[in-house]
């Protein structure tokens, strides 16, 4: 089975890659979108004062 | 008097870094209290020996 990697995906905000598996005749068998990045805002915002969050969470996405 | 304010704030911050409270200590000793000075230093030394070496494990270079 042949694998085509589209890595990284471009012209959008964020990190991602696409893996496409092809059979012997070149037909697509399956494809996967993977997100290789996690920063953990869900966790590290805990313990921060609530009034500071408007200055932290804009950095989830700045585009 | 600045130290009396700085050290408690520093200790509050170090607690957030997971650093044992006993590693920082502020005491007031007069120049005439030689015995007390020696006693405090010995106490501190024992305390640190009990805690063992500090490793922040930050980054890669420290390991």
């Amino acid at each position, binding site marked *: 089975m042949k694998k085509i990697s589209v890595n990284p995906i471009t012209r959008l905000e964020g990190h991602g890659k696409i893996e496409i598996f092809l059979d012997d005749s070149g037909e697509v068998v399956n494809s996967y979108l993977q997100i290789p*990045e996690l920063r953990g805002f869900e966790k590290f915002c805990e313990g*921060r004062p609530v009034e500071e969050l408007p200055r932290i969470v804009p*950095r989830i996405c700045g585009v | 008097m600045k130290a009396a304010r700085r050290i408690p704030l520093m200790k509050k911050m170090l607690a957030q870094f997971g650093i044992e409270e006993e590693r920082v200590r502020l005491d007031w000793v007069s120049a005439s209290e030689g015995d007390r000075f020696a006693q405090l230093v010995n106490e501190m030394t024992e305390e640190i020996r009990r805690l063992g070496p500090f490793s922040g494990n930050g980054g890669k270079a420290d390991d």
Partner: protein
Amino acid sequence: MTKPKIALYWAAACGGCDVAVLDTNEKILDIANLADIVFWPVALDFKYHHVEEMADTSIDLCLFNGAVRNSEQEEIARLLRAKSKVMVAFGACACFGGIPALGNFTTRDEIFERVYIESPSSANENRTFPQTLTKVEEGELDLPEMFDTVMTLAQVVDVEYFIPGCPPPVDIILKVVDLFASGQLPPVGAIIASDKTLCDECERTKEEKKIARIYRPHQIIPDPNRCLLEQGIICCGPATRGGCGVRCVKANMPCRGCFGPPPGVIDQGAKLVSAIASIYQSDGQEDINRMLEDIVDPAGTFYRFGMADSMLKRKSLPQGERRA
């Protein structure tokens, strides 16, 4: 004459630095005229293999934004380092760790637990977490390894210049482009911003640096003309490098230190502890206790953008949980 080559990359970042480059508006055309952009994931369709195929040091200038949080970002940092003559840590994340480095108060396992198990939108009874290698019917899938500790770019590869800011202001970006175009880049290691502190550049009226109590934003309406710190609002200006145009303070918001420590300061957070505690007026233990109560989150405030670059770098891991 062939045009110089520029590469831009984002690691653990939000994309705001890339947008800051586009905020140069029509000047972006000058940049495009001046140089060939050979890699820029947010805007152009070049893949990692295109970079791998380039000759070593064939890229003249690499603007790298984002912190290093996983093995892919480390690999790309090394790859771009090998391919580039000049490596620039672009923005607060690449320079100091930035907001992603607040993750250094926690660990990979704690983040995974929160994100994939505890979050209200997760239904994950089998406790499935991201794997570096997954076998699927058709073959194998791989993901980078997430680190416990977020690192700055300079902790991973050699860096020639640092452009701080969250994001770097347009005038600094244009200044760097000019310096690059005219071949007048400063000595290696330079931080391209001001050599003064933010306070030195702030135009607010400063009287006596004394505060009787700390106010949180919902407790006070700040006077737009007086020093915020003197009004009792925690402002990181005394231990932050200038050059940002005092953007936040002009908007009546206190500084949070995205330009990193000024010259002569090694640890931004420790300097702020010293600065704020020393101007606080206290008559006794009661006042000191109130100060401690009112400064809710000293580490997360004083190291808001600088955790990875601080002396301690991260929250200490319990014995037995330490890994490289």
